[in-house]
């Protein structure tokens, strides 16, 4: 039954998704621009995650797509048609709100069928469609309930069903999973992604959770202060960060001050005065770095504790200051003079022990000491 529904859905929705093109978009409240000069092309059927810290403008961008934030300058093209001055009700972009924004005075079925009723569909057709969509998102026989009688996860499904019911060309998700508990969240991630793939919907997800972004999206857009810091596949943004902001945001929390000299090598001056040489060619250096002060950034899981020395890697000698069990590994805090770094290891090292922390050169990213000014 559900399989049939899905099949019918797929047929009905062939070519459902629309391509979005943002051109030199400026958005803002009052006098300040929250988003300035943003351009982005989203292909039909693509899943894009807008990722960034709070206040980076990602929600503003999503609300502007839905028509709730006025566009100051630039264009929002949906399959080539400019929508930047179109009122929200005529845009056809279905948004799922972070608060779900379900209408408490209506039942689940009335919530899901609202958009269809607006489109003047006959009652029987609406009822059939509501049942179909409710089955699709796993709401089953809850359609007669009042919103107040639903759990968080069920509300989330109703909100998703409501947006999907109108066959939108674009689905906008505003932190859809942030109000769910960890278990439900993992399931819903998977379910939303599967639905999106099945329906071929162009989807834009706003989130501050990098795991959510990486596990769901085809491409991740990392926003920093209203500008795009990097666009790329989850693998690209994770392993090849474009700047130090992206590197840190993607979880590379270790940062070491370094001194760049010469063309071939990188000299690292450690707090205790010793120097280390690194082969420049093996490092990830996305931005031009001038000779002088720079910084090396790497993840805690790239560090090997007490391992045999690898050729061309960085070896730092320090003391274990603390450790925490993360479930699969122990995270150690290693102190090297005034520096501190986090290292993951499968085996727990005693506090106070002297350890060698080895970081392979290929796991290191080199950035200018001060972030590039946008």
């Amino acid at each position: 039954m559900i399989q049939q529904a899905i099949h019918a859905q797929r047929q009905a929705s062939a070519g459902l998704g629309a391509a979005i093109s943002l051109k030199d978009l400026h958005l803002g409240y009052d006098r300040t621009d929250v988003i300035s000069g943003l351009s982005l092309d989203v292909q039909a059927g693509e899943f894009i995650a807008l990722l960034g810290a709070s206040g980076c403008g990602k929600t503003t961008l999503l609300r502007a797509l839905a028509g709730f934030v006025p566009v100051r300058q630039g264009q929002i093209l949906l399959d080539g048609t400019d929508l930047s001055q179109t009122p929200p009700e005529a845009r056809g972009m279905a948004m799922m709100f972070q608060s779900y924004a379900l209408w408490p005075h209506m039942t689940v079925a009335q919530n899901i069928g609202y958009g269809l009723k607006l489109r003047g569909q006959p009652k029987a057709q609406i009822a059939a469609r509501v049942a179909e969509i409710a089955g699709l998102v796993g709401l089953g026989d809850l359609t007669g309930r009042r919103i107040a009688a639903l759990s968080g996860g069920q509300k989330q499904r109703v909100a998703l069903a409501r947006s999907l019911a109108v066959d939108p060309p674009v689905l906008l998700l505003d932190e859809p999973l942030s109000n769910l508990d960890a278990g439900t969240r993992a399931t819903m991630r998977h379910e939303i992604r599967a639905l999106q793939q099945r329906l071929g919907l162009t989807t834009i997800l706003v989130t501050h959770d990098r795991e959510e972004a990486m596990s769901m999206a085809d491409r991740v857009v990392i926003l920093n202060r209203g500008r795009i810091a990097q666009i790329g596949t989850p693998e690209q943004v994770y392993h090849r960060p474009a700047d130090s902001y992206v590197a840190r945001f993607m979880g590379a929390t270790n940062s070491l001050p370094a001194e760049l000299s010469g063309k071939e090598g990188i000299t690292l001056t450690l707090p205790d005065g010793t120097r280390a040489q690194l082969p420049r060619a093996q490092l990830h250096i996305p931005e031009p770095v001038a000779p002088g002060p720079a910084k090396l950034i790497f993840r805690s899981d790239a560090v090997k504790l007490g391992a045999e020395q690898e050729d061309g890697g960085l070896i730092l000698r320090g003391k274990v200051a603390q450790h925490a069990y993360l479930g699969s590994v122990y995270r150690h805090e290693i102190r090297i003079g005034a520096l501190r770094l986090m290292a993951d290891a499968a085996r727990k090292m005693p506090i106070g022990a002297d350890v060698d922390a080895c970081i392979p050169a290929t796991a290191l990213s080199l950035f200018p000491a001060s972030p590039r000014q946008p």
Partner: protein
Amino acid sequence: MPGIIRSIMIGLVLALLALAIFGPISNMILWAFTEQWYFPAKLPQSYGFSFWERVFRPQGNAMVSLLNSVVIAGMTVLVSLAFAIPAGLALGRGRLPYRVVFLLLFLLPQAFPSLAVHMNIARIFYTIGLNGTFLGVVLVHALQGMVFSVWIAAAAFGAVDRELEEAAANMGAGPLRVFFTVTLPLALPGLMASAIFVFLISLDEFTGTYFVGVPDITTMPLLLFTASMEGNYQIASITALLLLVPSVLFMLVIERFLKSDVLAKVGH
């Protein structure tokens, strides 16, 4: 020991409270069924329905006044809602400058002595021919209830979550559609509460009706006033009891009508 004293004190306070609330009402009920009650007697000497017959006889104008009262109260509710809904929307939602000043403005009719206000309204209404008309009385009553209806409506609209309206617009509803399918139903419990207030205020209104309506329009409170002034406690009590009927009925209707929506709101 202190426990017993405490219990006695609480019992005493409760008894006083009960006397304050139920004393006048029981006195009123006694009077309504009294035939004879002369001074030194603690209770009426004889009971009966002869005064009820006098109130309900065709030439007594109790029924006409009752009907007038109810019709005027209903119209007052309509007029004040017609005014309070747009005013409440503007004050509760919009970014109206000097919001507080506007809100306080509606308090003005209440702030001055009602006699002074109504005397002058009567004078103005007289010149424009509104004196002695239903419309005139309704307008005066609506003015009395204005502060409640507007303030409650502003609070009710202010409490409607903007995102719920955005969600409706997002689904393709134009502004009017959003208002009638989302904003208004969600603000309805508050608007109903304001309707109850206005209805009760109107049923009870005296000075405005006295200045603007008399002698063409008589309402229950006026009848009651006349009866009390004549020293006819039986007629006054019966009228007062009759006045309770529409208030209680109206509150019951509204309460039934409210329930599901209010509950949905509480759960939200």
